[in-house]
């Protein structure tokens, strides 16, 4: 039976990040969520399931505490979940995540038609996991997708690019990374959430995987953005406007 895989990441909910008086970021009271665009990916998979009658699989790589995220994904309508977890998976890079996903999909899931990823994660937004995963699996990747449909053995996707909309066809199996324009995720009902834990979850540990490559990047720091205000006030009469323009010139904002 054809199946659709939706990838998601359990990320810090940025609404709970606080800024300490010194300007440092305070993560002590954070909650977690499925990344915004990943929700769109799961929603799209579930909608296709309803129209095409296919099986949907949610897959994620993360810390063992992310069980709530797996239940969240299942409560949104996916049929089963693959949860690859280890306590060292808290800060994986895109290259490592893509490697793990590719390994599991290739060896454990095997048969699939479409993989749907969010365009980027809600935390780092590197936008790399989707394309890297497609490359490792040797399947076509279409990014910035705002709409797509499935034909016989192919998919037709609309990409939103700077110049306009590109329409691309690709043979199946294929991978798409989706933009939030693609759908509005439904809010799971109470029944959906209660039934989620009863659906099959395949748990995979780090030991069951081949060695994961070393990170290629080193995060030096993560700080809050600062907005510097010079707090100059200008009036609206002609001399004041002249002074305003002069100030912009001095700062190099206007030529």
């Amino acid at each position, binding site marked *: 039976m054809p199946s659709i895989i939706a990838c998601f990441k359990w990320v810090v909910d940025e609404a709970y990040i606080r800024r300490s008086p010194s300007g440092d970021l305070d993560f002590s009271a954070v909650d977690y969520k499925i990344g915004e665009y990943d929700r769109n990916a799961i929603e799209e998979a579930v909608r296709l399931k309803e129209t095409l009658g296919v099986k949907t699989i949610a897959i994620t790589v993360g810390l063992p505490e992310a069980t*709530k995220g797996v239940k969240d994904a299942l409560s949104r309508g996916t049929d089963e979940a693959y949860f690859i977890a280890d306590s060292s998976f808290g800060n994986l890079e895109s290259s490592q995540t893509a490697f793990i996903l590719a390994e599991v999909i290739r060896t454990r899931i095997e048969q699939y038609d479409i993989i749907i990823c969010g365009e980027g994660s809600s935390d780092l937004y590197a936008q790399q996991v989707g394309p890297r995963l497609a490359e490792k699996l040797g399947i076509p990747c279409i990014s910035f997708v705002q709409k797509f449909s499935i034909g016989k053995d192919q998919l037709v996707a609309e990409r939103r690019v700077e110049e306009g909309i590109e329409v691309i066809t690709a043979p199946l199996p294929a991978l798409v990374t989706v933009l939030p324009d693609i759908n509005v995720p439904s*809010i799971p009902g109470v029944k959906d959430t209660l039934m989620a834990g009863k659906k099959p979850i395949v748990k995979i540990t780090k030991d069951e995987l081949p060695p994961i490559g070393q990170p290629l990047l080193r995060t030096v720091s993560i700080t809050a953005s600062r907005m510097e205000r010079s707090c100059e006030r200008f009036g609206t009469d002609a001399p004041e406007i002249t002074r305003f323009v002069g100030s912009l010139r001095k700062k190099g904002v206007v030529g």
Partner: protein
Amino acid sequence: MDFKFTEEQELIRKNVREFCVKNVEPIAAEIDENSRHPAELFEKLSAGGWMGIPIPQEYGGAGADFLTSIIVVEELSRSCSSTGFTVSTHAGIMCMMILLFGTEEQKKIYLTPMAEGKRLGAFCLTEPGAGTDVMAVTTAAVLDGNDYVINGTKTFTSNGPTAGTYIVFAWTDKSAGRKGMSTFIVPREAPGLRVGEHFKKMGLRSSQTSEIIFKDCRVPKNNLLGKEGAGLPMAMTGFDGGRVGIAAQCIGILQAALDESVRYSKERVQFGSPIARNQAIAWMIADMATDLSAARFLTYHAAWLKDQKLPFSKEAAMAKLYASEAAMRHTIKAVQIHGGYGYCKGAKVERLMRDAKITEIYEGTSEAQRMVISGIVLR
């Protein structure tokens, strides 16, 4: 003691919050101002399965435990206490009474459409001459062939104008005293049922409240809920769960008052600094947060006891008493913190204060709760 919610309960709370931000918050002020029942919102609540949360799935509900339904009521009430109240009493009392005391046929005919949100329920006990003194009820039901014929007037019926199914309490044998009242399921279409005067209220204005008049109202005798004479004990059982629901409504109101007060006090600058830096304001907020926490734990504990099938009448009364008085006390303070702005239409705290008052009155006044608690403690 495990004070943690389950992962499912945490996810459900988040989902309700998201639902509220998208669907309830944008209309809460308008439906209060216009005393409007938002049918479009209740369709969404019904479609999302939010109307029968503690009712088993085989009868159209979500099959969740009572504590989960309390979480949902709390979050709904945080955005609009009329909506939270309607969902709470509909599922927690009206649906629950048919679940606990109904025959399989009654559950199929009446409970399932209610749990699915297709028909709203209404509870008809209070009368113009009978509030806390339930024995002063005069509505009577007489068996006539295959029907009961009901005559009387009920008042302050929440969902009166909008309900499809009424749970009605009437004497079948006045001489039997506390064992002489019976309960009936009366559909809206029953001949002789009329919706009377609609009440214009200080608060909870979106919840529709009216008289219901029964004049030779006929229902088949199969619509007797439970046994003849069991009405009062059934009502008391209904109230226990209902009280925890009101307590949940109150903690939603309190949380909203706290959210507004914290936000406003950090933004409002007087004498060169935010008023949150003033000890008087900070202490008001400290008291608000503390009483909210206390009300929370009383409420969750009462709900937990019910889920464990342990007696919870005392705890339900305590939760309702404490949470309602705290909600009133602190919404007054929330208006005070907001100053003149808090007194004007458009400020959320103005609506919260008006909404809080009724929680000290309905589902048993604070005085009645004290009677229940002292009656148990002084045994």
